[in-house]
């Protein structure tokens, strides 16, 4: 019998895998901090949704997607790098977002997450989005590799790097939206960065990077849920502490294998 806890676990697992593979490319494209900052762009939308009693994930998601389009466009026009553009938008969103929250505890929940169960609708839409993100990245992994190696080489291979960058930023934003309930906007960026960083310490090629990164992400999320249930820890911090511990292990492993 499939119950709501089981559906929540499946969605959390899919989110973790999406996060691991999106993070791998974010790391290689040197936009790791973008995940952290981009997720904050959702704050004003969440605040407004709470004020008007809408689903906060929906409100945050819409603003995040809109923010992603702004980032893509400004980046194209101004020739600033992605992180600089996201940095500006992030600071502005955080300020506006913080004003929109009347109750401090609501802000804490939105920032740090902690809701481990999902509704049937959230499961359906969430799973479709997660599957779409995973499918898109895996299908386009060769083009994404080429675009990060050299935009000029990508162009001679017939790849539209602008469009690819937009789709990648949208995948990134959708992954952040997926994780907002479990981890909150503050910690979801970390789930994109930390497993990918850990994987980079030990991976030697693209496939191993993707497998190890999503594996670490999946393990952190599922064990984080278990630990949080067993010991009444907060969910978001539990997941990130586990992921960080794995990162530390890979760092030591990397240092040892270099010295031997």
């Amino acid at each position, binding site marked *: 019998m499939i119950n709501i806890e089981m559906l929540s676990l499946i969605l959390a697992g899919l989110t973790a895998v999406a996060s691991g593979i999106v993070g791998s490319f974010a790391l*290689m494209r040197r936009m790791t901090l973008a995940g952290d900052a981009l997720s904050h762009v959702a704050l004003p939308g969440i605040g407004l949704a709470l004020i008007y009693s809408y689903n906060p994930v929906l409100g945050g998601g819409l603003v995040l997607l809109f923010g992603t389009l702004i980032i893509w466009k400004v980046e194209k026009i101004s020739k600033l790098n992605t992180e600089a553009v996201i940095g500006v938008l992030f600071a502005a969103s955080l300020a506006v977002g913080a004003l929109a929250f009347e109750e401090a505890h609501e802000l804490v929940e939105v920032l740090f997450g902690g809701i481990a169960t999902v509704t049937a609708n959230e499961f359906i839409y969430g799973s479709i989005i997660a599957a779409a993100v995973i499918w898109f990245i895996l299908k386009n992994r*060769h*083009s994404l*590799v*080429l675009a990060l*190696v*050299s*935009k*000029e*080489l990508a*162009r*001679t*291979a017939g790849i539209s790097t602008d469009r690819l960058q937009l789709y990648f930023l949208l995948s990134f934003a959708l992954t952040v939206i997926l994780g907002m309930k479990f981890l909150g906007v503050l910690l979801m960026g970390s789930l994109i960065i930390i497993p990918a960083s850990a*994987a*980079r310490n030990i*991976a*030697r*090629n*693209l*496939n*191993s*990077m993707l497998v190890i990164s999503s594996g670490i992400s999946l393990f952190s999320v599922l064990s984080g849920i278990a630990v949080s249930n067993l010991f009444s820890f907060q969910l978001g911090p539990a997941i990130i502490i586990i992921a960080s511990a794995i990162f530390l292990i890979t760092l030591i492993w990397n240092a040892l294998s270099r010295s031997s």
Partner: protein
Amino acid sequence: MEKETAQKILTVKNLTVKLGEETVIDNLSFNISRGEHFMIIGPNGSGKTTLFRALIGVLPYSGEISWAPTSVIGYVPQKLDLERNVPLSLRDFLHSKTGKMNKEELEKYLDLVNLSPSLLGNSLGTLSGGEFQRALVAFALIGGTNVLLFDEPTAGIDEPTEQQIHDTLHKLKHEHKLTIITISHDLSNVYRHSDRVLCLNKNQVCLGVPKDVLKPDILTDLYGDEHHKFFTHNHHDKHRNA
């Protein structure tokens, strides 16, 4: 056959490229024939790499750049700004152009540039300057390429390796009817390998067969009084570009 070799593969007419306010290429016109090895020389900042970038369509320009409809362009950049520890293998890099290739196909391209298949699993950051340059040439050849744009490296490659790469290109030109356009920093390569040379310094300073057009006064005009420096190699192995 005569007719085919005389066919134009590239026509450039009144090309002007501006980067911001600065005019980097000013009213340049030339043609390249199929199967030709065409070299471009000029001092630093003369617009050579800008010309390549306009030719592959990544820079806006005014004037006309017209490739023959059958041309398939491969580009070998002078250097790539890659982190050493990027988790991409040589196999990942070569696959990235057209998606999956089977083992035989992959090894065929490695064979063309004299790279060992044992390097396929190696991380891109661990390849030597010469190996990486060959990998870039192999990459450029993938997918039925018949025009190769080669921006000769100025650093990170020793002289014998560079000569091997030029010999490889020379062989490919004859065996695969490749048209090659090279930005060269070494006049000895121009004399040895090119059919025609374009001297560029914002606009055209000379154009033609090297032994006919590379006269001392033209070279002085192009490089100033120190043009003799360009007859010798000036490689710096400590600067690795890969």
